[in-house]
């Protein structure tokens, strides 16, 4: 209960920022006579009606007595000595003196305040500034199910709501648009493509009353629908196919999430399930591939490669990177599904909405075990289910084995503890010796140790390195071919003796990378007589790294005949060396530190455990080991798994470890003072918004609940029928895409900084119907587009504009400027070159230069004539750091930020893009070729082109100039003109 109380106190504190009224007049208490004047004079300019620094104010009783952010409560009635307020005003804390500027309080004033607190801080309610109830806000209230107004002419409930409002404002709806306009509108709206002349012609000619509804059904059933509407969704979740930031690498497996969204929309997946899968699909629907692919939602946004892969989370910069990473996950989840701006509560309580800082960090705790990572699964549902089942069995076996070993471990005692405590982890900071980079693998590199005096050599051992650079890991830099020699001459010019035993293996053939297994010369007879002061390893075929070649070793050991390592701590020389301590330097080669061979460690461990086991336990253990092995074999027999880039437990090494090593345990999340990772406060539990009271704000989970339980709890919280935000959010988004603006004009912000609903009753009617009707988006679309409101003409009306210039009340339909994708897809559709292949990795209209480090995405080098880029825009490979310039000029969504609503601009750069880009010019020629094939003469060709582009044949006044132009300048130039006309970019 304590935490619930804390939450309500925190909720109270944010009230601070809401404007109150002036204090009541008339002093009637000691507080009003003596204390309040002191507070008003000294404190209230920063902690009063104008400003509320730290969310604190001293004119509102509840806040004064409970608030104060990190120091709350600032006033402890009856205990002045313990009250932070006293500390601040007396200057006891040098870093925090109040007021910070100007005159300090006089001793008499301080005494007055002290006495008042000691006296129990009596504060009559009448002497407190009243504040608005923060929870009294439309979006936080339960969804009602209002009946539509009864209007005789409005058969459709949506029209009843809309027309009632119009009438109230002295407005009338516009007439229905003509059939061609309506058909074209519907095609673009539902599928993002223009109708063919035949399709629009047939629709216009069909006078049956069901014609329109049939068209709606047909378009909603088309796979093109999912392609169109998934783009809206991907705007909101800021999906991209690269990481962004520095080293903006491709995410080769992001696309399964994009395909999942398309599939889910086409299949009309119930919205609740759609939401649940994206937050916790792996937990709630583990046997379905959708449950894994949907988690691409969590990873959709940008990721700071360097901040994660090169900086560990033990460092401040690493902490910041991971904090910002979770921030993106939280903002994405709550912005997308709940239209809340929780990210504003990162540094302080939300300034406008009832979201205390603790809510924000509770949401971070939901995602705190996760990173953006590759997740294995099978796109084939049956194989996936089998795979999941095997994993579950494997997990059971592993747990049983662990339980068994736990009992043996106590018996095994010291030896095992020593083995396990030995800090031989793979990621020792001192990696080893690293040669300079070579351009070819044939460059020769050497490194040698000076043993101080001639040593009769027993054996020489080479211990490989581990470095995750370029994903190499174990065996990093271990040469493909090398020889080992001894000599008393440091230059190795005289008296050079080859250690011949494995020479054939390592010099005459490529040596298989040993991973972390040591290479020993084994001290056989052949080497028995070899003596030398210097031992040199010469690599003659280097290890590939990343477009270059290197030679690296963790440790060089030279054992004398007595088995002592004579090289330990001895000086090292090399042809060249990268000196980048502590990771790489010559002296690392003889420092005694090398990553242990995990397989060898495991063997030793098993032996120690079995030595103390009784027969029954041994048998039990053997059975479990056998079962694990057979499961492993069965898993191995499955085809290679597919992979999706998604939110998940990352099993990493070096700087980017993730939480895999701890079994996916959530990282502790602390309330950060001012959002600074260097100022952690108390640890917070996973939870959601405390302003909604239908469920506890902190999830009722046991402390040791697995991380997935947190996400499952959030998924259920979001999709609870009593959640007032989620259902309103989605119906408003859908409405926005049909009309150009939502019933709430700020689809991502249902808070006090957002807009108020223009039609609150309609919004609730839609939300309730959607929720209670199974969350079918297609039903919602059908409902909206069959309304007369949707079918209105988009023409202006001077009288109506005077009353409602923005058309908020929908006295007409809005003329729509096509989005970048729709323009591009329409160009391809009319040129006849649109390739409707669905799904798979994104097509690329750039050439990647320097992929090994920071890829350069060169759009200018791509061939606009390459048909692989003629697929729909939804399948484009979306780069963050170098956004597609042509699409960007057409206001394409920026994949680095969540886009609830696209900007709409008109600029000369946009005009130039549509006039001159290779894509347009190439397609203009294809367009011309197409109509030349389809019509025999120039007027026919021009007319056909016009009809393809605009869904109607040209009238006589338009045809003649177009034909004249085509005659003079060629048909491709005419086709280019059509692409550039306003009628191509706007739909009525």
């Amino acid at each position, binding site marked *: 209960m304590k935490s619930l109380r804390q939450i309500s106190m925190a909720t109270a504190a944010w009230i601070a920022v809401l404007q109150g009224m002036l204090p009541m007049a008339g002093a009637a208490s000691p507080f009003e006579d003596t204390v309040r004047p002191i507070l008003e004079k000294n404190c209230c300019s920063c902690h009063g009606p104008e400003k509320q620094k730290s969310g604190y104010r001293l004119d509102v009783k509840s806040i004064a007595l409970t608030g104060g952010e990190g120091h709350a409560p600032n006033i402890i009635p009856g205990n002045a000595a313990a009250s932070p307020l006293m500390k601040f005003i007396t200057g006891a804390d040098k870093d925090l003196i109040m007021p910070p500027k100007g005159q300090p309080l006089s001793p008499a004033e301080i005494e007055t305040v002290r006495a008042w607190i000691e006296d129990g801080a009596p504060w009559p309610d009448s002497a407190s500034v009243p504040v608005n109830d923060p929870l009294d806000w439309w979006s936080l209230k339960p969804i009602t199910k209002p009946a539509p107004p009864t209007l005789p002419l409005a058969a459709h409930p949506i029209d009843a709501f809309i027309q009632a409002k119009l009438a109230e404002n002295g407005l009338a709806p516009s007439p229905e648009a003509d059939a061609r306009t309506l058909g074209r509108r519907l095609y673009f709206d539902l599928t993002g493509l223009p109708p063919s002349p035949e399709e629009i012609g047939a629709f216009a000619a069909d006078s049956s009353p069901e014609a329109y509804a049939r068209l709606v059904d047909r378009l909603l059933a088309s796979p093109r629908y999912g392609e169109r509407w998934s783009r809206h969704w991907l705007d909101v979740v800021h999906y991209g196919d690269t990481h962004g930031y520095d080293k903006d690498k491709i995410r080769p497996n992001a696309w399964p999430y994009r395909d999942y969204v398309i599939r889910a929309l086409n299949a009309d997946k119930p919205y609740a399930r759609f939401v649940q899968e994206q937050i916790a699909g792996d937990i709630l629907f583990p046997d379905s591939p959708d449950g894994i692919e949907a988690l691409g939602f969590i990873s959709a946004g940008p990721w700071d490669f360097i901040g994660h892969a090169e900086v560990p989370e033990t460092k401040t*910069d690493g902490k910041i990177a991971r904090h910002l990473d979770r921030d993106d996950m939280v903002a994405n989840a709550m912005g997308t599904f709940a239209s809340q701006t929780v990210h504003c509560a990162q540094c302080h309580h939300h300034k406008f909405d009832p979201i205390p800082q603790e809510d924000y960090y509770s949401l971070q705790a939901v995602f705190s075990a996760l990173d953006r990572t590759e997740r294995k699964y099978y796109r084939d549902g049956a194989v996936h289910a089998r795979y999941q089942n095997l994993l579950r069995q494997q997990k059971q076996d592993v747990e049983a084995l662990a339980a068994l070993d736990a009992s043996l471990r106590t018996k095994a005692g010291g030896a095992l503890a020593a083995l396990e405590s030995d800090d031989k982890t793979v990621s020792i900071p001192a990696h080893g010796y690293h040669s300079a980079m070579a351009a070819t693998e044939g460059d020769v590199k050497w490194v040698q140790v000076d043993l101080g005096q001639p040593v009769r050599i027993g054996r020489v051992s080479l211990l490989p390195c581990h470095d995750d650079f370029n994903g190499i890991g174990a065996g990093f830099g271990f040469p493909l071919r090398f020889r080992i020699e001894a000599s008393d001459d440091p230059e190795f010019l005289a008296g050079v003796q080859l250690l011949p035993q494995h020479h054939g293996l390592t010099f005459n053939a490529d040596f298989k990378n040993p991973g972390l297994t040591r290479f020993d010369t084994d001290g056989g007879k052949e080497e028995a007589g070899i003596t030398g002061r210097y031992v040199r390893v010469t690599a003659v075929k280097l290890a590939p790294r990343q477009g270059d070649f290197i030679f690296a070793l963790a440790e060089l050991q030279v054992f004398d005949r007595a088995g002592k390592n004579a090289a330990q701590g001895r000086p090292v020389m090399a042809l060249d060396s990268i000196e980048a301590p502590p990771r790489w330097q010559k002296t690392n080669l003889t420092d005694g530190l090398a990553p242990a061979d995990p397989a060898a460690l495991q063997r030793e461990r098993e032996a120690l455990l079995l030595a103390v086991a009784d027969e029954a336990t041994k048998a039990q253990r053997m059975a479990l080991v056998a079962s694990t092995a057979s499961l492993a074999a069965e898993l191995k027999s499955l085809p290679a798994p597919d992979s999706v880039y998604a939110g998940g437990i990352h099993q990493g090494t070096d700087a980017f470890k993730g939480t895999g090593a701890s079994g996916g345990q959530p990282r502790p999340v602390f309330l950060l003072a001012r959002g600074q990772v260097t100022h952690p406060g108390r640890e917070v539990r996973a939870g959601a918004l405390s302003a909604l009271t239908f469920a506890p704000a902190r999830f009722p989970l046991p402390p040791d609940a697995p991380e997935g339980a947190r996400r499952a709890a959030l998924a259920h919280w979001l999709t609870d029928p009593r959640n007032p935000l989620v259902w309103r959010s989605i119906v408003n988004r859908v409405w926005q895409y049909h009309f150009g603006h939502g019933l709430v004009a700020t689809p991502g912000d249902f808070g006090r900084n957002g807009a108020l609903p223009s039609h609150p009753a309609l919004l609730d009617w839609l939300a309730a119907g959607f929720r209670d009707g199974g969350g079918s988006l297609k039903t919602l679309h059908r409902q909206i587009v069959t309304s007369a409101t949707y079918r209105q003409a988009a023409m202006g009306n001077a009288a109506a504009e005077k009353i409602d210039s923005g058309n908020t009340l929908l006295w007409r339909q809005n003329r729509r400027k096509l989005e970048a994708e729709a323009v591009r897809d329409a160009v391809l559709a009319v040129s006849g070159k649109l390739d409707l292949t669905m799904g798979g990795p994104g097509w690329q209209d750039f050439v990647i230069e320097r992929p090994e480090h920071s890829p350069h995405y060169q759009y200018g080098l791509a061939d606009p004539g390459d048909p692989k880029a003629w697929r729909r825009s939804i399948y484009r490979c979306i780069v963050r750091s170098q956004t597609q310039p042509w699409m960007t000029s057409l206001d394409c969504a920026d994949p680095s930020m969540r886009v609830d609503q696209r900007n709409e601009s008109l600029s000369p750069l946009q005009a130039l893009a549509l006039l001159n880009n290779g894509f347009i010019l*190439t397609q203009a020629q294809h367009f011309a070729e197409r109509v030349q094939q389809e019509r025999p003469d120039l007027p026919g060709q021009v007319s056909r082109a016009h009809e393809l582009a605009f869904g109607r044949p040209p009238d006589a006044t338009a045809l003649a100039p177009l034909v004249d132009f085509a005659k003079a300048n060629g048909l491709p130039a005419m086709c280019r003109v059509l692409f550039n006309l306003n009628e191509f970019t706007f739909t009525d």
Partner: protein
Amino acid sequence: MAHESPFHQRQTPGQLTRREFLWQSGGGLGGLALAAMLGQDQVRAEDGPSPGQLHHPAKARRVVQFFMAGAASHLDLFDYKPELIKRHGQPSDFGEPVEAFQDGLGPWLRPLWDFKPYGQSGKMLSDIVAPLGAVVDDLAFVHNMVGKSGVHSAATLLQTTGFQLPGFPGAGCWAGYGLGSMNDNLPTFVVLPDHRGFASNGVKNWDAAFLPSQHSGTIIRPGAEVPIADLFPHPSGKFITPASEAAAQQLMAGMNRAHAATREGDQRLDARIRSYELAARMQLAAPEALDLKAEPDHVLKLYGLDRGPQAWPKEINPEEEAYHFSSKCLTARRLLERGVRFVQVWSGNDNSFPRRNWDSHEDVQRDHGPLAHGMACGIAAFIKDLKQRGLFDDTLILWTTEFGRMPSSQGGKGRDHNPYVFTNWLGGGGIKGGVTHGESDHWGYKPLERAHPTLVHDIHATLLHQLGLDHTRLTFRHNGVDRRLTDVHGHVIHPLLA
């Protein structure tokens, strides 16, 4: 919070006033220019204060920002530390635990070049930036800049956009958004990237993010085959001729007007017609603006461009750096002169190998040497040129980078990242010359007065202030927040102002 700012706008196109519409849709050429072209040069009184109206009188009309990608060393260029020379080679001791990006905490490393005093101010400059000595009395140095992160991407974004994560507009976007354009045939905000490629975050450093897209920086690559994307038809459009182009413009205008005539009350249709006319003007104006050959010999000589491009060695070298950087500086001057409001000039590209930026982990001399030489030659010529044309006084110059470098060595010859202190300098545009505001400590490790560092937000606030804008009032609501270039921070640095 009240939204009295004349720049505060909601994002809902359906609900814009005519004035707001013009402002948001006005194209790269700016709301006022477009308003004028539409015959709306007088904004109606009931629309309230006009966008583009200043908060206070401006000292600067335009800005050029020089950005050193990869993090330029304050210690080897501008921030003289005799203590490092004295202690060179001794084990470094910071007196506190230090987190360095690559743990580069080797012995103290003296500046790679000697320092000498310049000008009346006697400001100590490194030999490698000696050309700047001639203009040093016009510059104001800030040696106590602090960053928030030692990660390139986050640090670059912080300096360019005021935020550490992508999705926020660059400073030039804000300037264009607040002030509009001063020309009607060139973009308002131009970016001259390093000729080798983009720095960390690519276009995210200058794109408009949530501001209307026409406020994005327009990339211009002086000397490249295609200096501005799509300015002229792609080579695949061989069917286009000058005659067909003129005819096409005429045909489109006619058809678009006929289309608009039956669709009254939709200003977007007219605006789009105008945008094609403006595009045609840009096609004429841009090549002229970028034609460096039009400069007289003495100017080319001032910039060291009188000998033209040559065959350069493969290794990074001072002559080539000076040539490329000076070309960008001269291009910047021509653009500013023609009414471009904000030019961002980059030195160095991403963090790849071999190094072609300032991220000298391995060898300061090798990378900083040529880059600093080129930068100093170019900027010194640029400042002299502005002065001789009377443009210096109302052009604000800002030299910045991601963060500084450590006073300790890394691998003997390099320096690790130092986000704890670094240098910016400013000049022109009402900035006091020959002064230093804010010192670093005697190592150049952290600010001398740790409690009073200078933040990028202060620099941004000062920049907007000089342009006549109050950084707290230049806002745009996005995702529930009235966003500012300066986030919730920033104080104008008054001691820097003349």
